[in-house]
């Protein structure tokens, strides 16, 4: 559809502003992470460091087991993502392709659970994990994150876009449900699955409150906890190091995005964005 020129200019302005708001903080973080500490405060909104230095990064890796911390964060995010995807996929399949008693009610509970604040369930979960001996363990961080109905909702919506007759065609050919999932459903919704997965991963990667409750020793820390150390350090905020942590935090998601870019683009071209 053609757009008239006034609307055209309006949209473009909104878009460029939004893109700027999205992009600016990243450039800022990158710049600051290479600034010496005094320049940070003297020269706050000037993005390019006057005297670039690697000191913040070197100091960071000396003070904290950053490799271990990155590994912890990665393990948690990966396991959470895989488990959530698996459960969501199976549950969504059941909701879309089966009729069973109480289906509506159970779906209703699932949806309702999306609207329950995490803060409500946090402490009971903490107590359960503690009683299972999982306090200060990354498995204690992982387990409660797995039960999240939003994945069921998202995958359910994608799955329903597959014509029912594809499944019927396979059923009449005596193909089992597990085979149908693997051979037909999975390939067809893979792009959407990828996006959802990456989104889960990033959410878990960013999670602060729950890991901060569970994890006490620096060796079991995740990246957001490390970041927090430099923001609310007792001696005040060590901004340039904090920015260095930010940049480290960003590396893996960025790599992930680049690796899976093809699928992510696929998702949005498949959904009609040319």
């Amino acid at each position, binding site marked *: 559809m053609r757009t008239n020129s006034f609307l055209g200019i309006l949209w473009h302005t909104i878009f460029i502003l939004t893109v700027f708001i999205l992009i600016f903080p990243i450039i800022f973080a990158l710049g600051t992470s290479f600034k010496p500490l005094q320049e940070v405060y003297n020269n706050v909104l000037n993005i390019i460091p006057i005297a670039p230095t690697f000191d913040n990064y070197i100091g960071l890796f000396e003070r904290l087991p950053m490799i271990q911390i990155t590994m912890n964060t990665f393990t948690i995010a990966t396991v959470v993502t895989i488990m959530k995807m698996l459960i969501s996929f199976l549950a969504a399949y059941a909701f879309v392709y089966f009729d069973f008693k109480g289906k509506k009610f159970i779906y209703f509970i699932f949806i309702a659970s999306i609207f329950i604040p995490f803060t409500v369930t946090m402490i009971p979960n903490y107590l359960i994990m503690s009683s299972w001996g999982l306090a200060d363990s990354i498995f204690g961080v992982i387990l409660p994150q797995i039960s999240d109905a939003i994945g069921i909702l998202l995958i359910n919506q994608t799955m329903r876009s597959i*014509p029912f*007759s*594809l499944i*019927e*065609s*396979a*059923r*009449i*050919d*005596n*193909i089992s449900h597990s*085979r149908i999932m693997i*051979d*037909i459903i999975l*390939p*067809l919704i893979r792009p959407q699955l990828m996006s959802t997965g990456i989104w889960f991963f990033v959410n878990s990667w960013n999670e602060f409150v729950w890991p901060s409750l569970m994890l006490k020793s620096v060796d079991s820390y995740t990246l957001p906890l490390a970041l927090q150390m430099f923001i609310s350090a007792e001696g005040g905020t060590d901004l340039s190091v904090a920015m260095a942590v930010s940049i480290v935090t960003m590396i893996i998601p960025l790599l992930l995005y680049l690796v899976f870019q093809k699928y992510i683009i696929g998702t949005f071209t498949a959904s009609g964005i040319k």
Partner: protein
Amino acid sequence: MKGIEFKNVKKAYGDTTIIENLNLKIHEGERLILLGPSGCGKSTMLRMIAGFEKITDGDLYMNANMVNEVPSGKRNVAMVFQNYALYPHMTAEENITYGLRRNKVNKQEIKRRLDSVVETLLLEPYLKRKPKDLSGGQRQRVALARAVVKESNFFLLDEPLSNLDAQLRVSARKELMNIHHTFKQTMVYVTHDQIEAMTFGERIALMNKGELQMLDTPENVYNRPVNIFTAKFIGSPPTNIMDMVYDNGKAIIGNQSFTFDTKWVKHIEASNATDFVFGIRPEHLQISKSPLENALKGKVKYVENQGDQYAVFIDMANSEVIAMSNSKDWNTDEVIFVQPMADHIHIFDKATTNSIGYPGV
């Protein structure tokens, strides 16, 4: 019996009954058409045979076995879906062989069946393409091929030609016919298109509102409709239907009359009906500007070009009657003579809407 049999079958979704009580025998190896307007239950019947819909009451037999509880995959049924239901991420070849491969048919056998169906349906150039790179007609053939390679006893087709344009339908029908000649499956073919039904069916089961209206050969469905619904549903333009009063060897239609021959007089007088309906197909009305024997008079409303013939819409006895003509020279409001061909009259009992039958048949 072999073949398929519906015995007192009922189908309801909650409180909505689609089919009340259906009895129907489909012979082994025949091409049966399930025909009817949308919502008549024909697709539901096909889906019950396929095992996609549970039977609410009654029994369904396939090859003499009661299959009410037999799952789809165990019924040895092949099906062509209306939207073809091709797997979009597989090539034509993968689509065709997928079911065989997963059911562990051995490789030589898969190759044999694939080669055979590819040859019959001329699919060679398209085997490596995905559905999105195929035209509508090519997709339809791939869907057909996927069903054929199963070599099942039962072959179900759900409006398989409805997404094709007119030219392609003719050739697709021919291909289907070939397939049936080769494999002699029991074919059940759902359509709402009467031309498809007439040309492809050995027998037609005409459905309306979940009830079987008529089950017979295309010839009989066309020439000997058992009720008004059948007479009007089959044929385009549809059969003309007029109320008539029988009076001493004559049909009084509006304020005109038509004299029956003796065979019809005997037949009508022998029937139990009291009120009658007169039916005649447009192609069985002769029209003329000059008087015709035993004809009714009517006024031309307008003429519709149908290509090879013209449909003349005539105002006659307070209803609209259509007659076919090779000429288009009929003027609006002109009074013409309309002569029903005596051998092609249909008489129905107005109360039951059923045909009173035909003399000497």
